[in-house]
């Protein structure tokens, strides 16, 4: 036999062998399967209840739930664990899971590229439902998220992302939030019953200083106002009147983001304005002085949208603002602050306040030629260095509960680390199997899903952090 043919067959077999399938069912853990998996493998998770945090730090793993009738694989945080699924491997797909009762993130993608999050159902009360951060070239499609206390869908400091055909409903915070990201398509989503439907949010004080080229198109943004349960949580806020509150009841909020396109959306039954555009000086949602961030929303394009029965009963901050203008109802577009080179189609036919400096968009302006924001080919993704993994773990996992100097869910790190100074291994061992130490804090959830070398390096990092 021709040795090249043999080589070709072998290569094919080897490839098939490399892309193996590992099936998991209760009482096995998903993490044990991930630990056995090689890059390119599929981990099939049978229906059942899995009480764990899953950490995927291998490339090209497909973590695929199996749905049988109405039986799903359910990841249950039991209201004690922080994160459901954490992904830091490139090219990972997470699909067909029910993720519920986690306190931090349902599904988080940390510094990984070429990811897909498909057909999952995420239930609160976490901070975020689905949260890609520092990712490039990702797809988030057909997920349903509700009951989240922060943002149901949160695209953080990422680029080339499609968020399509998802439903975000009855979340305490925002339905879909895009924060300091570039080239994001938000299309065909149904966002209803959230504090605000969709938010394009440029936040000062973060390492990424721009948000631009987000297209919000063909979405149903309907009846967004705080869920009734919000009243129970309202008294826990420490926001005082010196800070800008988010204008709840708004359909789409653009806060300082540039080159946003809003086209073909149905805005219906939102009690506040369907579209609210603000700069940071007025918005002050995050009043951090950060002059590397341009505070003004520039080059916004508001094209053809359908506005039905919005603005009839403004609430919260919007109500206060409108009262100052001696109005009781919100317009279809409200602009508070400064911005440059913004335009709207049919300026005279849209009820608006504050658009004096806006121009009429060029006739025929449309984003119809845009099919996706993702890249044609997977973006080249060198594996994360250990230091990057450590810093991302600190950011994604540790700071979810610990501030350096202040009390959060856990004690200040500056105090918590004292018994471990000079002995990082002791700290690494402890975070894998923590015990309750302080009467006035909850027990720390175990971080044993982290590989030992990552735990050790994170421990070293935590012990070395300097107090400025």
């Amino acid at each position, binding site marked *: 036999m021709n040795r090249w043919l043999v080589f070709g067959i072998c290569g094919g077999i080897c490839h098939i062998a490399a892309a193996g399938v590992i099936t998991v069912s209760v009482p096995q853990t998903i993490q044990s399967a991930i630990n056995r998996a090689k890059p390119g493998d599929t981990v099939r998770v049978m229906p059942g209840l899995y009480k764990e945090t899953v950490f995927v730090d291998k490339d090209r793993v497909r973590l695929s739930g199996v749905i049988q009738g109405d039986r799903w694989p359910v990841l249950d945080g039991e209201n004690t664990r922080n994160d459901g699924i954490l992904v830091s491997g490139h090219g990972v797909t997470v699909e067909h899971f029910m993720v519920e009762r986690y*306190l931090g993130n349902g599904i988080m993608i940390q510094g990984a590229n070429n990811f897909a999050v498909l057909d999952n159902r995420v239930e609160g009360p976490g*901070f975020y439902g689905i949260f890609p*951060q*520092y990712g490039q070239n990702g797809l988030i499609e057909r997920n349903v998220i509700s009951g989240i*206390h*922060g943002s149901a869908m949160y695209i953080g400091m990422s680029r080339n992302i499609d968020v399509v055909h998802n439903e975000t409903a009855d979340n*305490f*915070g*925002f339905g879909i939030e895009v924060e300091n990201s570039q080239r994001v398509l938000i299309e065909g989503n149904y966002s209803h019953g959230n504090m605000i439907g969709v*938010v394009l949010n440029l936040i000062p*004080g*973060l*390492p990424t200083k721009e948000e631009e080229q987000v297209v919000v198109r063909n979405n149903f943004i309907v009846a967004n106002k705080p869920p009734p349960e919000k009243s129970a*949580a*309202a*008294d*826990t*806020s*420490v926001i*005082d*009147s*010196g*800070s*800008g*509150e*988010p204008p709840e009841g708004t359909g789409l909020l653009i806060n300082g983001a540039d080159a946003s396109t809003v086209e073909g959306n149905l805005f219906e039954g939102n009690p506040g304005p369907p579209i609210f555009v603000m700069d940071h*000086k*007025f*918005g*002050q949602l*995050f*009043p*951090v*002085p*950060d*002059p*590397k961030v341009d505070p003004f929303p520039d080059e916004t394009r508001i094209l053809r949208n359908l506005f039905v029965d919005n603005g009839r009963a403004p609430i*919260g*901050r919007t109500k206060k603002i409108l009262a100052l*203008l001696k109005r009781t109802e919100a317009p279809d577009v409200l*602009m508070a*602050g400064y911005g*440059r080179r913004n335009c709207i189609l049919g300026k005279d036919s849209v009820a608006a*306040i*504050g658009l004096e*400096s806006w121009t009429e968009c060029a006739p025929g302006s449309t984003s119809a030629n845009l099919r996706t924001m993702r890249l044609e080919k997977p973006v080249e993704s060198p594996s994360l260095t250990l*230091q990057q993994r450590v*810093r*991302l773990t*600190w950011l994604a996992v540790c*700071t979810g509960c610990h501030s350096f*100097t*202040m*009390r959060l*869910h856990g004690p200040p790190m500056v105090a918590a680390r004292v018994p471990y100074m000079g002995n990082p291994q002791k700290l690494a061992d402890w975070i894998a199997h923590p015990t309750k130490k302080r009467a*006035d804090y*909850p027990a720390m959830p175990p971080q044993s899903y982290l590989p030992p070398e990552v735990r050790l390096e994170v421990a070293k990092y935590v012990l070395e*952090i*300097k*107090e400025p």
Partner: protein
Amino acid sequence: MSSLPRIPGQPVSAVRTRKRAVASAVLFAAWLLCSADQLPVNPEAAAQAKYTCQAFADKAAKAQAAMALSVKTSDKNALACTADLRFEVASGSHDRGAYLAALSAVLRYIDHVHSLKYFDLGHTNWPEYVLRLQHAAALGAKLQADVRANWPDDPELTILSGGIEQSLAGPDDPQRTMSAVERMSAAVNRKPGALGGLGELLIGKSYLEVPPIFGGAVDKAVPYLERAHRASPNDPRALRYLAEAYDQLGERDQAGRMLVALSSLPAQDSDLQTSADEWRMGEGLASRMHDKALAQKFVARRTALMDSHPELLVRKIETVLGHGGDDPMTGRPQYNSEPANSH
């Protein structure tokens, strides 16, 4: 002895719940509304907010102590005591100079607390800052009432009173801000350049910050800021606000000139914390204008200043809940004069 108002206690579990809600509210932009009369109840924060000022027998000793404390411009408790002592010296007297000093101290303290509050991305310490602001606002209100009764047309006292109003107004009360602007405008018309152009500076800042729908206008801000700059050519704030205004108007050359002037100021011409803070802002603006050399000059000057004065506040934004801090992909701090691998 002086302390911030005590706040009723609450179970720790409730505090924990609140902390979590606060964090999500801030970092996930899922704020929960709270009106001014529903201020947070947090025994920890209340404890942190406490400070103690040394007691003095007479006004002369209080004034002397306040003078000594006022130079500690990076120390919230020193500034708090300065405000309290100045208030005690002025209150009930007919000493115009004492009122000038007291209003200045209260305004300085409010601005300092606002800065602390704004750099706290996670809002972890906001309850304390809110308490401090409430306390300062109460001092300011009493002083303002006395000023209105005794010196209603005094330009300097009117400017300082207006500055306090403006500083406390917040973004949702533009009418209060514009009302303060009106009073300060009348004062600077009576006495241009009073207090080294502070009135003009505050008016210009207000016009920059208030949205057009409520009467703000960048082109109205510029002449006031130019007058403030002429009155105090070495005030870094006037230069920075002017740079911002010119940048917003698209006058990049003018903005660049202001930044170059800001980068060349002697640090000691202002208080050192203000110089350090304005140079940080200068680095940011220069970076946004793609002037790397100028940004680097700010970095170099600020780093040298911070190195030689470790008591100055770095203004590094704490890493909380997946946000802030150094870039996890590169390990670089957001501002080059910040120490790396710190919180």
